[in-house]
C-alpha cells in the first residue's frame, strides 16, 4: 500500500527532524542563558513528538498517539516547572 512517494517523504521527515534535534542540542549546549536552554529543551520535545507521529505513520500502529500526547503533557509541565523554579525559587507555592 505504501508507495515510493510516501517512503521518500517519511525518509525526508526523519532526516529533517534529526537535523533539527541536532541543532536544538547545539543550542542546549551553547546556551548562553538558562532561558535559551529551557527553550531548546522545549523545542526538542516538540521535535520528538514529530518523530513519534512519523514513526506511527510508518509502522501503521495507532498506539503511538498515546506516547505523543504523554510527551506533549510532560514537556509542557517540565518547561513550566523549570521556569517557575527560576522565577520563584519554588515550584508549588
Amino acid at each position, binding site marked *: 500500500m505504501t508507495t515510493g512517494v510516501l517512503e521518500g517523504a517519511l525518509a525526508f521527515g526523519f532526516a*529533517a527532524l534529526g537535523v533539527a534535534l541536532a*541543532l536544538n542540542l547545539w543550542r542546549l549546549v551553547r546556551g548562553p542563558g538558562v532561558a535559551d536552554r529551557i*527553550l531548546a529543551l522545549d523545542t526538542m520535545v*516538540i521535535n520528538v513528538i514529530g518523530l513519534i507521529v*512519523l514513526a506511527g505513520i510508518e509502522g*501503521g500502529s495507532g498506539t503511538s498517539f498515546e506516547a505523543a500526547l504523554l510527551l*506533549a503533557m510532560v514537556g509542557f509541565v517540565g518547561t*513550566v516547572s523549570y521556569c517557575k523554579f527560576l522565577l520563584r525559587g519554588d515550584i508549588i507555592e
Partner: protein
Amino acid sequence: MNTPPLAYADLFVSALIVLGAGFALVGSWGLVRLPSLMERLHGPTKASTLGLGAMLVASVVWFQLGKGVWTTHELLIPMFLFITAPISANMIAKVHLHRLRTGEASEPAGPAGPPPPPPGSADWATHEVPHEGTPGDFAGD
C-alpha cells in the same frame, strides 16, 4: 490495489509530511541562528504549530484513507499544544526578563533591538511579591 484515490492520498500525506518536517527544521534553524532570546522564541513556535499540525493532519488522513478508520484523537495533540505553547513561551520570556533585571543574563544587540521598556515607572511582573493571605505569602513565617 493502488486505486487512484489512494494514490492521491499518498501524495497528499507525503506533501503534508514534507511540509511539517520542513517547518520543524526551519524552526530549529531559527533557534540556532537568531541573535537574542526574544527573537529565538519566534522560531520554535512555527515548528510546534504549523510543523506538528501538518504532520498530525497527515497522520489522520493516512489512517482514514489507508485503513478506513477515523483517528481524530490525534487532533488532541495540536489542540493541547496550541493551548500550552503561548504559556510556556510567556514563562520563558519572563525568565529572560527576570534574569536581565538581576544582571545574570545579557541582551545581545539584534536587528530587532532590545524589547521596549514597560510604560511609566512600572516594571514587567516577573517576580511579584505574593499577596497577603495567599499560600505564597511567607512574610509572617
